[in-house]
Structure formats: C-alpha cells, structure tokens
C-alpha cells in the first residue's frame, strides 16, 4: 500500500518509492533516498514535524516535506 510519508501512522514501516524532484537533493544528505527503508517514530501535533528512523538513524522532517515523499508501507 502506497502512502505519503506525512500520512503514515505511528510505528508503520515502509520503503521510499518516490521523492518529488525539488526535494530529492535536500533529503539525500539526511539518508532519505529512493529504496531506503524507514519507520515512523513520532508525529508532532498541530502540523508539526514527523520523526522517522532511516538505517538506524533518527531524523525529522517538516510535514510539507514529508508530503512530497511516497512510501510503500510494508507493515
């Protein structure tokens, strides 16, 4: 099932399948690239940032950025 990263629920895991072009380079340095597995850790309330774990390392993204990343949710 495909979802935007911003729509993932707590503890869901998946693989990055798409990142919008304008964002691709900006998140690459944070370890988020197509093919990477990640897990949602926390979503902050009131349109706050999302926290994800990629390759064992935690990172956070603004909700608008997370909305430009597509995830194939595996569990």
């Amino acid at each position, binding site marked *: 099932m495909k979802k935007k990263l911003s729509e993932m629920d707590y503890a869901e895991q998946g693989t990055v399948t798409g990142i919008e072009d304008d964002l691709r380079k900006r998140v690459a*340095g944070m370890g988020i690239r197509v093919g990477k597995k990640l897990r949602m850790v926390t979503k902050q309330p009131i349109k706050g940032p999302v926290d994800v774990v990629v390759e064992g*390392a935690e990172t956070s993204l603004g909700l608008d950025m997370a909305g430009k990343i597509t995830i194939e949710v595996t569990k």
Partner: protein
Amino acid sequence: MKILLMGHPNVGKSVFFNRLTGANVTESNYPGTMVDYTKGWMKIEGEDVEIVDVPGTFSLDPKDRAEEVAVAMLHENRDAKVISVIDASKIERGIYLALEIIEEGYPLVIALNMRDVAEDKNIVIDADRLERILGIPVVSTVAIAGEGIKELVSRLKEAKPINVEDIIANAANASNTESVADAGGAA
C-alpha cells in the same frame, strides 16, 4: 596549512576542535550572517596549522544560513585539507557528505567519531576496510575521551584528492564479500 573540520550538526566537530587546539582559540563571526565559526592554531611536526570549526551541514546543497556558511567556507578554501567528522552510529549519511567533499577534489581524512556510542548500538565498523575502499585514512575516534586523536593528526599527511571512479571500483570489488558496516541493533 589550513584544516577544515566538517560534518553534520552534533557529531563532535567542536570537541575535536578543542582537543586539537587546546586553549588557543579565537571566535569569529562570519561576515554577513549570524552564524559563528571558530578558528584556532596547532602545531603538526613543527608547522603552524590553522584549524577551522565549520558549522554543521547535512550536504553541500545548503538548506539554511548555517549550511550556506559551511559550504561557502569550503569553497573559499580550495587549498585546505578536510577532516570529515562522522557519527559512527549514523555512518550512512555521514559518508554521503564525505563523498560530496571528495567529489569536489578536497584531500580528506575521516574521523569515525563516537565509536563507543555506535558500539552501544551494536554497530561495529571495519575502518580498515572502509579505508581500502575510499583510499583515504579512516580513523575510529572517541573525541571526548581523546581516543584516536593522535592517530588522526599523524595521518593527515596521507590525505589526498581521490577520484570517485576509483571508489566505485573498489566498492564493487568489496561488495562480493561481507558488508562494511554491520548494524545488528538497528530496527
């Protein structure tokens, strides 16, 4: 000679800086921004060397003011050597930045810092093997305890520009066997 300490935010660059320069510190404000950087001096084999503590950046594609300063400092010091400080427990993204700097032709040494933190997460990195793939010195360090600092300094002279094609070829040869980083504890 000038050495730039570069890496992500919170990987220990400033701890390295203090270890390397001792008390001989000058604080500066980079012109046109609100971002501070710090420089100091140390002696390596009798030569005065300037050390610059560059603001943390995730990539050479800046997202904010601090990152712009970091990238500008790198580009304004074409003749500098770079110590790439990497959080050993987050090696993947650290290497990404290091490769970007290598790609631009800078001589580089890698400090795999926070080795102790990585070990607590069951991450053990084969630094020798990484060194063979990258073709540059890779030293495991625990900067706050002073571990590995001397080795890092003594190996600065081995830093040299590397062709990325060589790294790709070395990595292809190495990928037939076990992986470099064994992240057993990562969920």
